[in-house]
């Protein structure tokens, strides 16, 4: 009962929002839907926990379209938590945005915003489609969900109707649609791998495929995995298919960037994980793990190159997402405890990156520039955002005692345990380079003195724009200090399904 409600509530609310004229009630609807969605997610956790401790646990039956397993629930929780935070932040953001045409501070041209009803409606449809991705137990339905996320989020990137965001939207739409079309070919290749000329064909249900791997035709399964990796990898932002990502993340409103980076990239990763799960069950995990390691380290390397000397702080955060998607991919590719670390890291990265993007939005609103060297003294001008900016930086680079340290360390340990010293050295070296690159950007922004004019006209920071990032940052810190046993049990289950231990 919970799962259909999780999808239908934001879907109906989204359709309603398109036709709701009054701004106030529409914003209330946005927050209310986010609250209901998180409430349902908590209910799903309780159900999962009861199932875990019950004497006769209920397994997902073959032929189920929608259900929540450990991996799905883990990703759904981050989506839900992030959306709630972003909805609260979004109310403040939409309140500040002007309805009349206003001047673009980069090129000083006039532009107007997308109607707020369209923005809110698409935001809610985006939530519905991401929930569909997390809950679907069928490869076909998963594909439908991932493509739907692209279509629902494209208008969000084009909220500020000027040519740079339009360029970003076009690249996003075209590159991701082509990528996801290749994932559809992956679906069909998987169907070819499963089809038994004498028996009935399975309809690409994940449970069926994982339980009866003996019927899978290995070469075609490998081909299918390759297409899934390239197709969903485009959406996830794995290098070299990441080219749309920095543009879309830097040009969209910060609240959308937070959702794209924290929630959407994970959803695409889930698509790859599902395919990997089938490969593990069929015994060709060596092939899929090898590819995941290569793409993982490759993404980290490309991200490191572009973070060094980056001039735009939102683009820096976008490249950092490419880096972290690489870490996730590497973690799963290592197997063993690496899969556990990757699951934990997915959650930590989402919370941290959402915090950083929301704070970046506050900095952008105060300084009206995305150029790193024009921003000084965030600590003085925006005391709380300044602290969160530094805290988020510590967390994203994996400094203890944040949760990211724990997960990145687990992945490092997995690399050493698996006897892959070269991978471990490359991983550490790239993390170090990225730490230096980001420190060189973030710290000068936080330190120093803001210009006198800015300092004179400073205002108190709004609670709506500082509370959500503060909660996200504290959550990552809490995970680093204490990992609840329920969470460990869940991550263990995810890890086992992905061929870890």
């Amino acid at each position: 009962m919970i799962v259909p409600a999780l999808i239908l509530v934001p879907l109906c609310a989204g359709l309603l929002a398109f036709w709701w004229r009054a701004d106030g009630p529409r914003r209330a609807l946005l927050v209310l839907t986010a609250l209901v969605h998180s409430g349902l997610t908590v209910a799903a956790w309780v159900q999962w926990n009861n199932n875990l401790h019950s004497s006769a646990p209920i397994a997902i039956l073959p032929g189920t379209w929608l259900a929540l397993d450990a991996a799905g629930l883990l990703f759904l929780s981050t989506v839900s938590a992030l959306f709630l935070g972003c909805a609260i932040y979004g109310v403040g953001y939409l309140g500040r945005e002007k309805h009349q045409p206003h001047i673009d501070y980069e090129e000083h041209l006039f532009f107007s915003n997308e109607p707020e009803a369209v923005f809110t409606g698409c935001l809610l449809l985006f939530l519905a489609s991401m929930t569909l991705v997390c809950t679907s137990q069928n490869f076909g339905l998963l594909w439908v969900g991932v493509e739907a996320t692209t279509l629902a989020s494209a208008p969000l990137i084009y909220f500020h109707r000027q040519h740079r965001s339009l360029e970003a939207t076009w690249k996003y739409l075209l590159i991701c649609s082509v990528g996801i079309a290749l994932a559809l070919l992956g679906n069909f290749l998987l169907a070819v791998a499963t089809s038994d000329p004498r028996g009935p064909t399975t309809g690409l249900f994940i449970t069926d495929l994982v339980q009866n791997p003996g019927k899978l035709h290995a070469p075609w399964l490998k081909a299918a995995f390759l297409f899934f990796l390239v197709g969903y990898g485009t959406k996830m932002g794995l290098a070299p298919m990441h080219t749309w990502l920095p543009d879309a993340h830097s040009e969209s409103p910060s609240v959308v960037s937070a959702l794209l980076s924290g929630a959407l990239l994970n959803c695409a990763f889930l698509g790859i994980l599902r395919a990997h799960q089938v490969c593990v069950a069929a015994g060709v995990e060596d092939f899929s793990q090898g590819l995941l390691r290569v793409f993982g380290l490759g993404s980290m390397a490309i991200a490191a190159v572009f973070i060094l000397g980056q001039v735009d702080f939102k683009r820096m955060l976008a490249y950092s997402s490419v880096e972290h998607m690489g870490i996730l991919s590497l973690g799963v590719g290592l197997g063993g405890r690496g899969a556990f670390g990757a699951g934990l890291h997915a959650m930590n990265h989402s919370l941290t990156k959402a915090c950083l993007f929301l704070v970046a939005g506050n900095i952008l609103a105060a300084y009206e520039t995305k150029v790193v060297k024009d921003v000084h003294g965030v600590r003085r001008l925006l005391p709380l955002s300044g602290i969160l900016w530094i805290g988020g930086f510590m967390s994203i680079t994996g400094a203890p005692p944040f949760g990211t340290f724990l997960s990145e360390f687990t992945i490092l340990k997995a690399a050493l345990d698996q006897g892959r010293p070269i991978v471990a050295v490359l991983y550490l070296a790239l993390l170090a380079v990225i730490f230096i690159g980001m420190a060189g950007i973030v710290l000068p922004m936080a330190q120093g003195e803001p210009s006198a004019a800015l300092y004179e006209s400073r205002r108190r920071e709004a609670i709506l724009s500082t509370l959500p990032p503060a909660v996200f940052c504290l959550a990552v810190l809490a995970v680093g200090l204490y990992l609840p046993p329920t969470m460990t049990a869940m991550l263990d289950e995810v890890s086992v399904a992905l061929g870890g231990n």
Partner: protein
Amino acid sequence: MSTDLNLVLVMLANLAMLGSSRLSACIRLSAAQGILLSLLPLQLELAEHKLAPRLALFALTILVLKGVVFPALLMRTLRTADVRHEVVPMVGYVSSLIFGVIVLCFSFWVSSRLILPHPAPSPLVLPLALSTILIGLFLIISRKTALMQVVGYLVLENGIFIFGVALANKTPLLVEMGVLLDVFVAVFVMGIAIFHINREFDHIDVNQLTSLKD
């Protein structure tokens, strides 16, 4: 009309698109391709002497979407955007055609080396699906107008569709309909985006979309 003839006509439409300079001609060719593809599931099932009602519904949806709705949407965008009606190639038409022929030969070579777990309904399915996919990708990267990139996306989608219908023909109807709905919305959203690109830049030449880079 046999399946083989149908597939050959699809390939000829691909080659005609590679050599065509008019946007409207390319859109019409993609419509023709869509109509041919809607016949494909029917032909394959009739060869096995059975025809389920769900299949007829599926074929009809394909016919309406790929044969009528997509081309109509694209033609409407072409009219309202009021832009140059050429495809503006980055690779010349003759070179494009030569590329198409090379792709076709390559696809036949690759297909001859692939071993299917069960026999394909026609020996032409695999090579022609593969070459349609590759030609779709080529059209996306080698044509500068945004509208032509959408046509390329449709050709890519058609190639994947041939593969799916002929070799993985037991996908549930729900999924097939979901896929079509997504492609429909994709074309719709891209059409809106092109309209805005035209208004913002006074043209739909994607070469001008270069202000975002590192």
